[in-house]
């Protein structure tokens, strides 16, 4: 069990600075999820934690010990590589048990462990195969198995489920969650799956261009994003950013925008708007906050109805996205599939601003913090 402190870690490849001073500190047993756009440095950071890449600057501490220069095997970390890195000459079973063998676990116990892990990952029937004879998802599961067979201080998972089907992914996610609850091992986990991020993480670090944009609980990240980037990055479909003018009305501050007609939306923290009166800010409103009129919300404090023109509809199974355009910004609204709307229709929608946030148009920083 480890608490992990990453202090001002930098990493350069030749000219390019890939990590620009990362600071992250998590507690023992925490489940940290790293998210960020492709190429932002997540894998590099993972490699640095594991000691597989030498950092150019900064320090990494595990359990209060400086391990910046410790060799990977002394750090007692297990990792799932994004590229799997299976040993091509070994069978699946050997791949999984290799780490145990290295740690001098007796043969019998290894075999038991392999069986257990293989069953959990549903690869029991593949144990005798070589990696080259596996499908993509099977390889990925073997890569997982290799890490899960061990009981290290810390697990690092680099997109461990990306090649699995939804069903299996849910099952695996559950297994990981159980494992974490049972062992309390610190886990750092990279994923692009929002649901994974939201359901697994104790805390999420959102990275961009080699920098941590925000480090917080899933709910914080979702409801209280530090800046436009974080807000836009988390949530699928993404949060809508609608240019809105700050107006003073009835002694408080509100946001005014043009849909089919002019609407004025109340704002939960009007004080934050006070210094921006007359300016245009970006109103951040998640798609699920713009819905078809729902009787039970009628009359709530921050709910306002307005007409919009439907541009496109996108059925997504459980919901249908209605896409419209407000002040030149494309806006996604989430509606019940039963609520049928056709492109070109002008329909009434409910805008719920109880969780709305506002950003500066230029700096992209939150204004209402």
């Amino acid at each position, binding site marked *: 069990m480890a608490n992990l402190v990453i202090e001002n870690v930098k990493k350069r490849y030749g000219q390019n600075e890939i990590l620009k001073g990362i600071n992250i500190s998590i507690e023992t047993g925490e489940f940290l999820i790293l998210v960020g756009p492709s190429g932002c440095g997540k894998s590099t950071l993972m490699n640095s934690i594991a000691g597989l890449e*030498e950092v150019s600057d900064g320090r990494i501490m595990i359990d209060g010990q400086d391990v910046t220069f410790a060799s990977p095997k002394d750090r007692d970390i297990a990792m799932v590589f994004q590229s799997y890195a299976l040993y091509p000459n070994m069978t699946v079973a050997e791949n999984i048990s290799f780490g145990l063998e290295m740690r001098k676990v007796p043969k019998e116990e290894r075999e038991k462990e392999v069986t257990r892990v293989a069953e959990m990952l549903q690869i029991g029937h593949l144990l005798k195969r070589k990696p080259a004879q596996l499908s993509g998802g099977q390889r990925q599961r073997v890569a997982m198995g290799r890490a899960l067979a061990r009981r290290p201080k810390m697990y690092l998972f680099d997109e461990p489920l990306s090649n699995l089907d939804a069903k299996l992914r849910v099952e695996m996610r559950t297994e990981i969650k159980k494992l974490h609850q049972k062992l309390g091992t610190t886990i750092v986990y990279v994923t692009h799956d929002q649901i994974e991020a939201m359901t697994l993480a104790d805390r999420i670090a959102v990275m961009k261009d080699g920098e941590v944009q925000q480090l917080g609980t899933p709910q914080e990240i979702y409801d209280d994003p530090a800046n436009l980037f974080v807000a836009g990055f988390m949530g699928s479909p993404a949060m809508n950013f609608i240019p809105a003018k700050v107006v003073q009305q009835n002694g408080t501050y509100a946001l005014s925008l043009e849909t089919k007609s002019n609407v004025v939306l109340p704002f939960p923290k009007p004080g934050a708007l006070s210094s921006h009166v007359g300016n245009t800010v970006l109103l951040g409103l998640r798609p699920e906050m713009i819905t078809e009129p729902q009787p039970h919300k009628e009359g709530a404090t921050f709910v306002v109805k307005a007409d919009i023109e439907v541009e496109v509809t996108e059925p997504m199974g459980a919901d249908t996205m209605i896409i419209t355009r407000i002040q030149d910004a494309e806006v996604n609204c989430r509606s019940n599939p039963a609520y049928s709307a056709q492109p070109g229709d002008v329909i009434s929608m409910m805008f719920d601003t109880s969780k709305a946030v506002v950003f500066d148009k230029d700096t992209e920083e939150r204004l209402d913090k």
Partner: protein
Amino acid sequence: MTTKSANSGSRTTQSGRPARLSLADWMPKLVMAPTVVTTIVCIYGYMIWTAVLSFTNSRMLPTYKFVGTAQYERLFDNDRWLVALSNLGVFGGLFILICLVLGVMLAIFLDQKIRAEGAIRTIYLYPMAISFIVTGTAWKWLLNPTNGIEKMMIELGFEDFRFNWLSDPDMVVYCLVIAAVWQASGFVMALFLAGLRGVDGEMIKAAQLDGAGIFTTYRRIILPSLKPVFFSAMVILSHIAIKSFDLVASLTNGGPGYSSDLPANFMYTHAFNRSQMGLGSASAMVMLGCVLAILIPYLYSELRGERHE
């Protein structure tokens, strides 16, 4: 990827605490150590020693009476040396080129799921196995103007067939090329075959889909990914070329005249048979200089262009 210990010196001061150096951290260096020591002593030490000798008038055995660059001046005043040097150019160039082309070609051909691959491979490879001390004789016969291939062809009815390269001072160097290619090309083939066997199958599939035919796939995808193999082959071949000594000694002994002399033979003859250690050393240094002039840029580009890890 670098080991932690590598930069620990500079790092220590930076992080303000000494990095622990376990045995494991030293392992890579320990493993290399014997090679490093022997290389420094037995290659570079001797090289420097030879360089020193080249400035002395050492005769039968080394002495240390320095004569400045006199030996080099003598060397470049020596017709035989100039012939040897230009022979090396012709011989080395042709030999390397033909071996590479032939080796690659044979390797690719053999890689087409050929029946009896093992037997054919061994046939291509076997010339390496037989010492030139004797194959030299067989080649001498084959190339001999009176009773070799020429005679055979004439007996087969090609009355006007002439093949007298071995006794023609202008052509004899090509005889060396023929015999040397015969001997070394099989190994180049093996080298490439080993490389081909390691190429990722998916990549080839991708190339096929991209519309590359089999030849293009080899030329553009597979062979370029065998760049390291080319590198090995180049080094090996130039090494063989530079050191072709047995070959000359057994096939032509430098003749006719000294028209087929190569620098290695020149060097050996002068240093050991003519008690001109100083001159021999000078010629060795010039040989080395030529190699370095060609090789260093190549090595540089090869090792620098390596992937970052």
